[in-house]
């Protein structure tokens, strides 16, 4: 399980070398999450229509190691976009992945780009 968790490491837009097309914007729900697959990774993608912003993070909730975050509810806390895990409502910042309940574990986030109606996620591998 530790191995699995380690395979998800935050990628910043500057460091992304491989931008992977994961679908058309129409394939993704508005104001909610969906999951995409890249090799063995599961990545959750969220589209906030009110700010017209896209976020991506690991689908794995680090609390109980289940692939569920893409099915969590999204929103904001004091302006920070966040996702709440559907299992125990642990919430994470979608900007930097830190836990907003004051607990120690955090999640990896990935940069998202929209070009010509397509959604791209940035990876380093």
């Amino acid at each position: 399980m530790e191995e699995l968790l380690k395979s998800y490491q935050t990628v910043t837009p500057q460091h992304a070398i491989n931008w992977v097309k994961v679908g058309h914007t129409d394939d993704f729900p508005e104001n909610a999450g969906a999951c995409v697959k890249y090799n063995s990774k599961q990545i959750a993608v969220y589209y906030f229509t009110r700010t017209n912003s896209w976020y991506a993070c690991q689908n794995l909730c680090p609390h109980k190691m289940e692939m569920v975050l893409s099915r969590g509810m999204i929103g904001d806390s004091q302006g920070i976009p966040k996702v709440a895990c559907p299992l125990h409502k642990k919430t994470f910042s979608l900007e930097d992945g830190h836990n907003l309940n004051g607990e120690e574990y955090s999640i990896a986030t990935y940069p998202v780009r929209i070009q010509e109606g397509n959604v791209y996620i940035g990876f380093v591998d």
Partner: protein
Amino acid sequence: MVGFKFCEKLAAHPLRDQFEVLVFGEESRPAYDRVHLSEYFSLDSADKLLLAPRDWYAGNNITLRTGEMVTSIEVDTKRVFTHKHDYFEYDYLVLATGSSPFVPTIKGVDKPGVFIYRTIEDLDAIKDYAQKLKHEGKFKAAVLGGGLLGLEAANAAKELGMQTDVIEFAPRLMPRQLDKAASDMLQHKIESLGIKVHLGKNSQEIVGAEGIEGIDFTDDTALQTDMLIISAGIRPRDELAVKCGLQTGERGGIYVNNKMETSGPSIYAIGEVALYNNGIYGLVAPGYEMAGVAVDQITGTDKLMSPSIDMSTQLKLVGTEVASFGAPFIENDDITAIIYENKQRGVYKRINVSKDGSLLHGGIMVGDSSDYNTLFQLYINAMKLPENPEDLILGSRGGESKSPLGSVLDLPETAQICSCEAVSKGTICNAITSGACTSFSDVVKQTKASSCCGGCKPMVVDLVNATLKSLGQEVKDTICEHFNYSRQEMYDLVKLHNILDFDEALDRHGRGHGCETCKPILASIFASIYMETANRQAPIQDSNDRFLANIQRNGTYSVVPRVPGGEITPQKLMVLGEVAKKYDLYTKITGGQRIDLFGAQLHELPMIWKELIDAGFESGHAYGKSLRTVKSCVGSTWCRFGMHDSVSFAIRIEERYKGLRSPHKLKGGVSGCIRECAEARGKDFGVIAVEGGWNLYVCGNGGANPKHAILLAEQLDDDTCIRYLDRFLIYYIRTAAPLQRTAPWLDKLEGGIDYLKKVVVEDSLGIGEELEAEMEELVQRYACEWKEAIEDPQMLKRFKPFVNSDEPDDHLEFVPMREQKMPRPW
């Protein structure tokens, strides 16, 4: 705990920087909360009991040396030595070594299976041993000691699944806090929960070939048991003090004066190890006061310990409220006891009042300690009692009910509200009037009031609200940071302005972008007003509603079709079996007379539901805050005792309210006679057949705080019963707080059941017809949301596990269990 409190108070002191602090603890963990030790079994980690994490000590420049035992003190050279053969110099030494359990010298006390109850390690050992016993088919545990800690230990043993007995030497339980009648009431309550009590028992020998098998008593009786937890009192850990020649008491404890100074120079003792006024005080509040005195003395102010120690206590033991305050047993020429005993409700209350009726000296409560805070304030502040002191425990009869304290703001400024943290009314009110705090949580953070045992929370909340109100600020429960309104206000706003979706609500009445709290609340409001299903605004639904299924441990889902009234044809039962077999679903009968199919993957849900809907099933809404089931007994059609046809009526009720969304889940029941086999009184609404019609009960529930539903109306015909149910349900849906079930809603409803009767039965507000019409419209608009979902390709998209792949999720793992399967455990 007291040692930690000393550190906490010193860390916050203005002269903090003049001191270098070094803390030794022989246990491997930093200080943890022993008051809530028994909760350890229900927590997933010991860390949750820590009073502060390790980095708190580092952040406050306190060196923490855990797992290091101080072995001796050299008073002359001011040095302490540890078992690692290090020594450390001190200017001031504070002994907060606490106590250890007293283990009586009984033959066989060293046998395997005999435990004490003090540390997390003790609890781990108890848990492991109990697990081992259960595997061997042994289930009997006993606790030696019927005091406060003993009963906590007994509850813990019971929670571990053991059949538990309590053995007490005295002729009553909690002999230091309760009189005989109170003990009898507590015993009755505890025994009704399956813990057996043996009083007046003197243990002679612990018997068993290897491990413990039983206990022989001096009266020639015996008790068979597979394990024993000893909780027969405490002994101060004064061995270091004895060794270095400090003055100690005959029965243990280090002598201290009212400055917490021991007989040794610059050595202080605080907490359960300190012998003050010839007493040892095993409570948090006096310990914390001692810590405060020691900090003040060391930093150069002259605060002294109170001359008398208040041993009042309020707690919940084995699910029973127990409180004891002041002088609980006192009765003499000047003081008489007023006693109220209600064996039906399991309540005992006693107050000791001066003969002229003016002062309260102490008292005892079992089964209902809701008056404790008020009574304690009257006692501790020596306030004048109302004209009829019996009203204090009986409630005033006739006329308006009013708190005998009047307003909480009438308390003296010095009244101590939080005894654990010694916070006065003045401190709490000032925190608000100074502008530093604007809410209960602010006040807790700033003053620490109610941060320990939480017993004073209701009074702190009242004080905060009353103070805010006196400043002209309105106090309300707002939904979250995005909506500055209560649920009821949002309900009214949505209805009044005919708001149709979440974004509109946010634009008109909110701010920010919403969250996992306000979105489902608004979704529920839209559903309750427009009967819209969870499909129309899927993204604002709670995650379960979005996928129309209950997420389980490993992220798979369960499927529960509606089975109205629990009646099902063999044909439909076979369909469920076939579907479960085809998709390899773990199958279990639910408590609500339905069948739950577990382990469905996201992409399988539409396929499963297609087959179920083709066979005539509908969504059971088991995932929603909505009507779940109306349980029924078989009733007069088959049962030889049945008076009315409970199944038919249950089906009619369930069909009427299916799909109805509400602030929390709703459950109903219909029983065909007073034997009540449908357990209808454990539901939000229950209907029971009686001579001449149905009795309607409301606001019950099972779960963590079981409540029996209360009689709303008697001998109703079918249609009247439905009409009252319509009114009751809509009234609840309109006015309840988020996630508030009917029982707590009724508790908060001003006027209680009498007021509810007026609204529903007598139509005192004149809204009866309106409520019925509203329900009728919701009933007409019902649609099965699973049928909607599988018929609309756009809606089906959400069940695809990956946007960019058609593969199923390969992360899922199951393990076999009793011919079925379960998720790989966490």
